[in-house]
């Protein structure tokens, strides 16, 4: 950050006199750019980012990290890039690219973390343009406790930045970003439980297989439902949105946010590249397939427990050779 600012200052100083005769507009642009660079530099100094260095680049994504987090950050970028492509294709909150900074605020050797309990990691992301010096900053304890969770945190933060750029029809239907930090299997199981246990006439008809009721309960079609009809909450809507995005492949996000005017159901169907009813049917079928089919105890489990108990008892007979 400081090198870039210094370079900018040098470039400004080295501008030949002829160029100074230019119109005011380029000068104003340069001044704005310099101002934002200085703001970013000040911000960086305030956050003590001097030890942060760039670790890896994947296309338009850049990741930087503090010492001790660099290997993990490089690995996280690969996983994050794959997950981002899965849900959002190549979309970024800023057309100039997206930079991620993972900064530790404590000594990260395992011994120090063990002794002091200080394991804080700050995730900071900013568009590469410098126009918005800090898009977000998140203090998370999770990455060090579960290193594999780092990419999940990144993905959630990325989604929170990107989601406000989506079509207004989508945002008015689902105001917040979908819960991408949650592992898929947990999210789907939670959604299945919400679908199966939803009360209200419309929601029960959806659980029974009536797709029109599913569309109404999700708020995709028909009049606005009363509480007694059991409209689905934002969690199921978010799961439906993610299902549509995943079904549609890498360009799904772009189709969802197509600039041409379209209503909510059409956008979701276009994102999934299938008719709206097929999307609803597949989503509902997929969730219901997660219902536990078997009882908590199966015959095989009973026999296994009895068999092992008998074997261990036989072992006890052999082990008890007291003298």
């Amino acid at each position, binding site marked *: 950050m400081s090198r870039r600012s210094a370079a900018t200052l040098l470039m400004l100083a080295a501008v030949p006199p002829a160029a100074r005769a230019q119109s005011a507009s380029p000068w104003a642009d340069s001044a704005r750019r310099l101002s934002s660079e200085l703001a970013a530099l000040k911000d960086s100094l305030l956050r003590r980012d001097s030890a942060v260095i760039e670790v890896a680049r994947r296309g338009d994504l850049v990741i930087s990290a503090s010492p001790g987090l660099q290997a993990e950050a490089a690995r996280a970028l690969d996983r994050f890039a794959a997950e981002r492509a899965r849900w959002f294709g190549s979309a970024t909150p800023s057309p100039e690219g997206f930079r991620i900074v993972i900064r530790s605020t404590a000594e990260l050797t395992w011994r120090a973390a063990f002794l002091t309990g200080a394991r804080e990691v700050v995730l900071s992301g900013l568009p590469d343009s410098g126009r918005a010096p800090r898009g977000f900053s998140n203090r998370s304890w999770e990455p060090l406790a579960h290193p594999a969770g780092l990419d999940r945190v990144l993905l959630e933060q990325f989604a929170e930045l990107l989601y406000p750029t989506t079509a207004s029809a989508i945002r008015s239907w689902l105001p917040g970003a979908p819960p991408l930090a949650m592992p898929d299997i947990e999210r789907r199981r939670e959604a299945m439980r919400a679908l199966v*246990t939803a009360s209200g006439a419309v929601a029960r008809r959806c659980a029974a297989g009536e797709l029109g009721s599913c569309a109404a309960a999700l708020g995709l079609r028909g009049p606005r439902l009363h509480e007694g009809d059991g409209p689905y909450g934002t969690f199921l809507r978010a799961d439906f949105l993610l299902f549509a995005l995943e079904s549609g492949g890498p360009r799904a996000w772009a189709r969802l946010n197509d600039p041409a005017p379209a209503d909510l159901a059409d956008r979701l169907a276009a994102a999934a590249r299938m008719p709206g009813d097929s999307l609803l049917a597949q989503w509902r079928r997929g969730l219901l397939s997660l219902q536990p089919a078997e009882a908590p105890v199966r015959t095989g489990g009973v026999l296994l427990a009895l068999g092992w108990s008998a074997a261990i008892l036989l072992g006890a007979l052999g082990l008890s050779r*007291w003298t």
Partner: protein
Amino acid sequence: MLTAMIRIQWKGCRHLVTALAVAAFGLPIASVAAGWHASATSLPRFLSELELWGLLYPGLAAVAALALGTAIWASDRRGHHVYALLLPVARWRYVLLRFAAGLVLLVPVILALWAGAVAATAAIDLPPGLRIFPHALTVKFGLALLLLFSACFAAAAASGRTLGIAVRLLGLFLAVHVAVILLRPGVNLVWMLVSALASWPGPFAPLGGRWMLIDV
């Protein structure tokens, strides 16, 4: 002779059995009472919480098995098994009697869990989409208790020499594990062993799976 053995063991373990039975009765009731709000919007959360409570069932089985398995052999260990060796019964028969009497002591704990599960599920007005499993959960708990009790019973019944060998073997295994971790960080022998024991058809596989009193 079995009756006499049961009476002796009951005298020695009755406080323990009573405490475990109270815990077993209270666990399902507490798990349902803690999260039940009878509201459709909170049901998924209630089920997630119930799933976490479910971890306590194998935990309780482990505590009960460990406590009873060691308590049953406590008097014999104190007397260096002299009493057992003086009895005019074969050693294997004595061990079987101890085991059978121990199984009888497990019954109150299992029955208490069943009563608690039935009481907990009877008290709620079940919304559509949910099912209850008080009987299946009790069977699962009983099997887990039997399995863990057998393991603890076998360990407690072992002679001092056998236990010494087992401890040395365990120490050797841990030393090899540390050496392997240092040479090849990706290979975790302890984890491989635990996975083998806890997955089908390992001895502790019945402890896995769903421990849900109420589920979709």
